């Protein structure tokens, strides 16, 4: 795998002789366009995610988010210009409409969307840290420790997190967002562990690691200064994939009515909407807008992941 990263790093040098006739400025510009990180998918995905974060940050400044907790408008009012079943037309007081108790949907989104991202990122960060630690330990030390970690991750990867978490939530009831993230993190360390272990095993025999070992570098130095930088694209990819898994699990719990009860989340809004028969009453803005926002979030994460794939694997780039 490190061969591909070496190849991508070496590409500008090998291309240089063909461009002997070009000026230095032109060469620099070409090399800039060859920068794998300037990937359209990566940029588009990051833009989508940043716009959700911006909605959460700016919304708190410019919109009255207390409307999340109290029904302040007419119930079941449509977005601006949309007529509901009782013939009321939506107004700018509630641009995205209201739910069955008159809560403002826009305020629900402003508070709920960052909450979903927060759970995903926190759970994934904890899972990644565990995965890096266990993966390096397993791959680098080998032997009995490796066996235990390998079997452990093999076992845990087949257990769907949602089902264990359902048991947890059914037993304990209400939990906080952070607690939910920590619980999800207990189930997302396996794939980074496996990935890093496999990479470390293959890297351990490579020339530069042997070289470092011969020149007397400590294990810590080899692991974190020699090996870890080569893993960065994979770690990013794995991190983003885990954010997606964590958000899917969190939304799943919320849609089953098991998420945090006192904090507005997108999944909770969908749960309320389904339970109040929003589909039959044609209140599409109530469930549809949170669904669309979640879809944007997942598409953004997918695009980032596809972009990262192309960054780390140049063979995919020509497609």
């Amino acid at each position, binding site marked *: 795998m490190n061969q591909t990263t070496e190849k991508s790093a070496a590409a500008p040098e090998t291309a240089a002789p063909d461009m002997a006739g070009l000026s230095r400025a032109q060469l620099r510009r070409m090399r800039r366009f060859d920068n794998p990180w300037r990937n359209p998918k990566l940029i588009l995905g990051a833009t989508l995610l940043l716009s959700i974060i911006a909605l959460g940050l700016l919304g708190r400044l410019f919109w009255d988010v207390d409307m999340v907790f109290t029904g302040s408008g007419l119930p079941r009012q449509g977005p601006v210009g949309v007529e509901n079943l009782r013939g009321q037309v939506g107004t700018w007081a509630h641009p995205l409409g209201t739910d069955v108790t008159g809560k403002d949907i826009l305020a629900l989104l402003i508070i709920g969307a960052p909450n979903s991202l927060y759970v995903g990122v926190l759970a994934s960060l904890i899972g990644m840290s565990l995965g890096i630690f266990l993966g390096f330990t397993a791959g680098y030390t080998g032997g009995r420790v490796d066996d235990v970690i390998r079997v452990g991750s093999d076992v845990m990867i087949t257990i769907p997190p949602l*089902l264990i978490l359902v048991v947890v939530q059914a*037993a*304990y009831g209400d939990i906080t967002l952070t607690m939910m993230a920590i619980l999800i993190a207990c189930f997302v360390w396996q794939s980074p562990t496996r990935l890093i272990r496999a990479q470390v095993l293959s890297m351990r025999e490579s020339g530069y690691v042997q070289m470092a070992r011969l020149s007397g570098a400590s294990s810590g130095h080899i692991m974190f200064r020699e090996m870890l930088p080569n893993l960065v694209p994979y770690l990013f990819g794995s991190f983003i994939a885990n954010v997606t898994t964590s958000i899917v699990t969190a939304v*799943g719990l919320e849609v089953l009515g098991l998420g945090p009860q006192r904090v507005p989340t997108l999944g909770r809004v969908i749960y309320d909407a389904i339970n109040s028969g929003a589909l039959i009453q044609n209140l599409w803005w109530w469930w549809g807008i949170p669904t669309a926002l979640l879809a944007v979030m997942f598409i953004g994460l997918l695009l980032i992941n596809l972009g990262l794939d192309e960054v780390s*694997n140049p063979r*995919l780039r020509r497609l």
Partner: protein
Amino acid sequence: MGRIPLSYLANRLLTLVLTVFIAATLIWLIPRFPCFSWVQVLFQGLTCVDPADAALGRMAAGGGSVADSDAILAQLRTTYGLDQSYFTQYWLYLANTLRLDFGLSTASFPTSVATMIGYALPWTLGLMLISLVITFFVGNLLGALMVWERTPRLWKAAIPAAMVFTSIPPILSGLLLMYVFSTQLRWFPLSGPYALTVEPGWTFDFASSVLYHGVLPAMSIVVVTFGFWALGMRGLMITVQGEDYTTLAKAKGLRPRYILYRYMIRNAILPQITSFALKIGLLVAGQVLVERIFAYPGMGKLLYDSILTQDYPVIQGVSFVIIMMTALSVFLVDLIYPFIDPRIRHGG
């Protein structure tokens, strides 16, 4: 048969047994966690729920008051085995779980959990198998077409665009499909496994009704999962495209379609089967939620209903059975794989 080495088999079997054991232990331990004295010292504020007490509470809530509550409580404690040590309770639980005996449901009282799961399981398995087969074929074919040089340009542009849906969890696609095809266009029924007017049985009417009602739940899973296979297939096809035998087949002047099916897809599809093992957990979890919104009477609906009624034996039984199904299918995939792909030799 001699192709699978014994050590490989033992390894896979150990993983299977450990998975089932750990899942069973977690499911037992989680509700009882606050009841151990050392936990209460470490985490203040967690309350230990006594199942007998809770059952009595439900009785009182249903009937207004309960006479002879102390005697009933003692009786319930003996019935549930709560008067024994945790160690004994745990061993009894493990022994019962292995025999798929999860006790009696508390919400629909005299029915055993195993009976309820027995009704729900065929629906879940049927829906899962059908959507899995469709998604596997569609996904791999589209993934292969993304790489094939003779794919029409329109398709090459359309497939990546369709992939955008793949990151969405099936519950969201389910909601969208439900809105478009049953409340707006009214092509498909909104919910339920079959029409209320049809008598269940081995008749054509019943079968067609079941199929008709299954279209939307299956589609909502297919729409969001085919991209996973397509992406994996694309990566594998790129590798196969560069192989010498593909170049040779082209040089021989074989028909391009023949090369695609017999030379490229056949070689690229096999590793896809192993990634199935890694993905099945998420597929199962997604289907649980799809069943809940379509009121499909499978394990997901059973789980949701038991959460609403706080029916812990059912919650635990359903969770355990789904985890066991997942672990078993991973085990089977691992066992079958060396037979269908002779390139793989384990332990050799």
